[in-house]
């Protein structure tokens, strides 16, 4: 069921941008402000809010929960990583999970979130579910911030064709006073503060009806008790996971290693070609050859000594090209990826040929003179 879509059609007052987009923007602004790492969207429906949020770079864990698995499944693939995410893994890690279940039930997978959004959710809840809802969200999940949006029934007369509620599945639609008293009571009970706002401004002169969508932002007043699941909250998993996507990230050793090796080999190739063309120029030109030759001898004679001195210059010796790892480490991109020299050594170990003492990268150029 697509609540956003229908609303657009039923409005006599056209909101620009459409109201659902304004709600998403509101959440995005909130994310920008508080920079939460873990965000859950309850009643995520076709995952469009989650899709919007996956582009927020502060978020590392995104979860969606809905009572209807089919609606989630329809578009869940939009939450999968894109080809480019694999080609250029991002610095941050991101895991997106979709759960099938009810907000009236507790499941430990919903613990530890920083922000929980309930956009146009509560009005779909049966009375019994609504009763359990505060305990599940504020008591059990207990995130630092909760956002709840719901229609403002005082605005309904301004909307065309709204008979009773804005959607046949709505179990109720609250006035501002009703919502606020429920919210204040909930906040008091679970030690949260709450502030009210909304999106969808009323027409001029009718300000007292309030926003079309009323929003309550709840902020937890007490500090988080601990990172992990507190022991006094033992619960069994009742949600069913319908989707899980782990985005490639440089935090994952596998992707980091690939990125480093690819960067290292590519840059080393450039150095090698530069070196080779210089080398070739020298050996092609008899006059220059005399200048180059002594230094070549010098390299081969004092190889050991040079290595000890950690010479930064790559060089050619016979059929071999040496590029000291310190040089490689000085490439800006490699440096940024690895952080430390030790990390570089560890990541490329076994993946490339090193000189006997392990200080330089060794290329054999013998078999690369192939014509093309």
């Amino acid at each position: 069921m697509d609540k956003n879509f229908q609303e657009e059609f039923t409005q006599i007052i056209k909101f620009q941008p459409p109201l659902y987009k304004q709600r998403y923007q509101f959440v995005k602004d909130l994310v920008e402000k508080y920079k939460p790492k873990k965000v859950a969207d309850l009643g995520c429906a076709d995952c469009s809010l989650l899709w919007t949020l996956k582009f927020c770079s502060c978020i590392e864990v995104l979860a969606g929960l809905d009572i209807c698995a089919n609606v989630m499944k329809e578009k869940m693939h939009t939450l999968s990583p894109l080809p480019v995410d694999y080609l250029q893994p991002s610095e941050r890690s991101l895991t997106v999970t979709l759960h099938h279940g009810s907000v009236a039930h507790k499941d430990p997978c919903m613990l530890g979130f920083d922000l929980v959004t309930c956009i146009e959710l509560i009005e779909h809840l049966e009375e019994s579910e609504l009763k359990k809802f505060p305990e599940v969200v504020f008591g059990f999940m207990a995130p630092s911030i909760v956002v709840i949006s719901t229609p403002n029934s005082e605005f309904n007369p301004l909307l065309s064709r709204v008979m009773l509620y804005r959607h046949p599945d709505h179990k109720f639609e609250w006035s501002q006073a009703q919502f606020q008293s429920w919210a204040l009571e909930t906040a008091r009970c679970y030690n949260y503060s709450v502030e009210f706002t909304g999106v969808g401004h009323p027409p001029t002169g009718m300000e007292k009806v309030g926003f079309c969508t009323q929003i309550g932002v709840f902020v937890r007043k007490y500090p988080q008790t601990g990172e992990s699941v507190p022991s006094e909250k033992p619960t069994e998993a009742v949600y069913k996971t319908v989707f899980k996507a782990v985005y490639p990230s440089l935090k994952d050793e596998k992707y980091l290693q690939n990125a480093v090796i690819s960067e290292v080999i590519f840059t080393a190739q450039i150095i090698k070609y530069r070196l080779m063309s210089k080398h070739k120029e020298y050996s092609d030109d008899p006059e220059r050859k005399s200048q180059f030759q002594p230094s070549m001898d010098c390299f081969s004679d004092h190889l050991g000594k040079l290595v000890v001195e950690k010479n930064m210059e790559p060089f050619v010796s016979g059929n071999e090209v040496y590029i000291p790892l310190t040089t490689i480490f000085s490439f800006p991109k490699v440096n940024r990826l690895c952080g430390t020299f030790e990390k570089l050594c560890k990541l490329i170990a076994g993946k490339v040929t090193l000189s006997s003492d392990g200080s330089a990268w060794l290329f054999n150029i013998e078999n690369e003179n192939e014509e093309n």
Partner: protein
Amino acid sequence: LQVSSGLQDLSLRDRGGRRRDFHDLGVNTRQAMVHVQESKTGFSGKVIKLTTNHFRLTSRPQWALYQYHVGYSPEMEARRLRSALLFQHEETIGKTHAFDGAVLFLPKKLDNKVTELFSRTRNGEDVKITVTLTNELPPTSPTCLQFYNIIFRRLLKMLNLQQIGRNYYNPSDPVSIPNHRLMVWLGFTSSILQYEENIMLCADVSHKVLRGETVLDTMHSLHSQVGEERFRDTCAKELIGLIVLTKYNNRTYRIDDIDWDNNPQGTFRKSDGSEMSFVEYYKKQYNIEISDWMQPVLISQMKRRRGNIQGSVALIPELCSLTGLTDKMRSDFNMMKDLAIHTRLPPEQRQRELGRLLNYIQKDDNVQKELRNWGLSFDYKSVSFTGRVVQGEKILQSGSMFDYNPQFADWTKETRGVPLIRAVPMDSWLLIFTRRNHDVANTLLQSLSKVTPSMGIRMNKPNMIEVDDRTEAYLRVLQQRITPDTNIVVCILSSFRKDKYDAIKKYLCTDCPIPSQCVLARTLSKPQTIMTVATKIALQMNCKMGGELWSVEIPLKQVMIVGIDCYHDTVAGKQSIAGFVASLNQGMTRWFSRCVVQSRGQELVDGIKACLQTALRNWSKWNRCLPSRIFVYRDGVGDGQLNTLVNYEVPQFLDCLKSIGTDYSPKLTVIVVKKRVGARFFAEVGGGLRNPPPGTVVDTVVTRPEWYDFFVVSQTVKNGCVAPTHYNVVYDTSQLKPDHIQRLTYKLCHMYYNWSGVIRVPAPCQYAHKLAFLVGQSIHREPNMMLSDRLYYL
């Protein structure tokens, strides 16, 4: 046949365009050919046991797909609303369904022919939905086949494979080739079709080459390579025509242009009419910060045929990743070598990779459930059948007859030092080279004089001319030194510069029609290979001057063979070129060659008609009569274009023949040649899988019942899997047995003079390809007709 627009969206979509019928379903050409109604199979050759990459689709008995029309009262406009309202009744309709807003497909039959359902919209409006059964589709109906393909693609998506273009790829286990900043993804192509006896899935391993850098990275490195002055030109050359992926959505775009006057700070008009800058848009929509504000903007044209809107999309280089290979990369020997290790899989490995896909399908619960719901399943073991290996041909050369080793399908050794059928003397010729290549020129000359006598080529000392290494210098020499007696011009080029090569070829193919041979100095620089190279060059030059090398026995008399292939200038996107080659003599050793240059939007067929007319005139000049049989091998027909070919091109051929004279009615056979096919065959040898030997013919099981078609494996490959060539006889009044057509086709694969071995397609197709390529790449207009009786483009 058309499912309906919405369902097509579910399936494969051309970039922003209409879905094409890639499988040429519904083109039934066999029914018009009475002589192959009963059987289209040949008989000659040795039987060979083969397996393939086809898998039988099994469905439950009496399987049918039920098609319903869904109507709304009052009428509901929005498609999503229509689905939402319909699926409020999942208990009636069932969990398994495919719905596009109007047409509903179900695996089950509803109790009544007309089912009425009642839903209520969110604003309390009551809606009556009428679901009417319109069709019961048997498993073999085209709609059903299209439907299978849609379902199968759904499965691949469920397996978390990524769609790039038409195929699906597995991103989680890439092969990276850091030396070239390339990444290879393993993926699969799949199509489900009605084959001879069964509906089968044809699945193959596919590799996608992706690049680990953005378009902006590439631009930077081009800038450092060529400098400011040639930067824009080089970018255009390198980038236009490439397919890119974006950082923010799952679409692919083709780069059609680069807008250097624009940059990310430029604005565009959004669909709601407001103006916004790219920087602002990407920040707002995707939270992406564009770091380089001075980069140009890429333009991609959207081919949206619905409503004929020709829109374009602007893309930011920094946010685009390149896919595929450029021509420059393709010509990089080392890169291709490194790639081939990963992409050229030998038979066993290829089947193993394919097995992995089937394994995923078999193991995945969700996929299995989806299949079960539709009542579908696959035979996980590939189909086995028998093919035939026809006998190798005898190579005839100046009174001698040679057998070649069928395993290698090559007779370079056997014919070495044997006189050619017709050796054209080189009495007067030019050898042009730069100062640096003086020695190389002499080496070439010495080697040529060593190898030519045994071939029977008489060679005088050439006119040796030294030039500066500039295009104008070459052209000036050509203008001054070519005389009416000149047989051929040989240019030794110091490096491969396309502009120089193009200029020489253009001049010598149009203004001053003289055969020419360009050789890279590097090719001649290795003493150990110089004799082999000189032999090849001598043969090639001889052909360009109208010489004949070898022949095979052609039992049919008074026959003209035609080969047609097309070249599409993808970079400029401007013109298409059709190469047209027709035999002139009984031995198929001489050919008449012309080409048609066509600007965008024009049909090639008019030009081809004119070609056929001149070809017939020339044939009658050579043979003093008109051919009684004409065979047209038509290459370059894209997926989904068969219908056009059958309905427009073939009638034009017939028209053309009619116009020659009322009493002239030759027998015509038109065969569509296709190199890019999904089918692969493997010979079962001692428990292992090998490539089938050259000469393998397949005309059962994996062919299509509605066509008179067959496969021939004519060539050999050193590594990887051999690709069979598909031949589809779309028109045939020859009354020849299928076996004879198959044999003739295989014989013609022996007649390409630039390769002393068997090739993948009949020689006239390869000649036509070579000609169209030369014209499309270098000459850009029709070459001089004076050259048309020689293979000057080899």
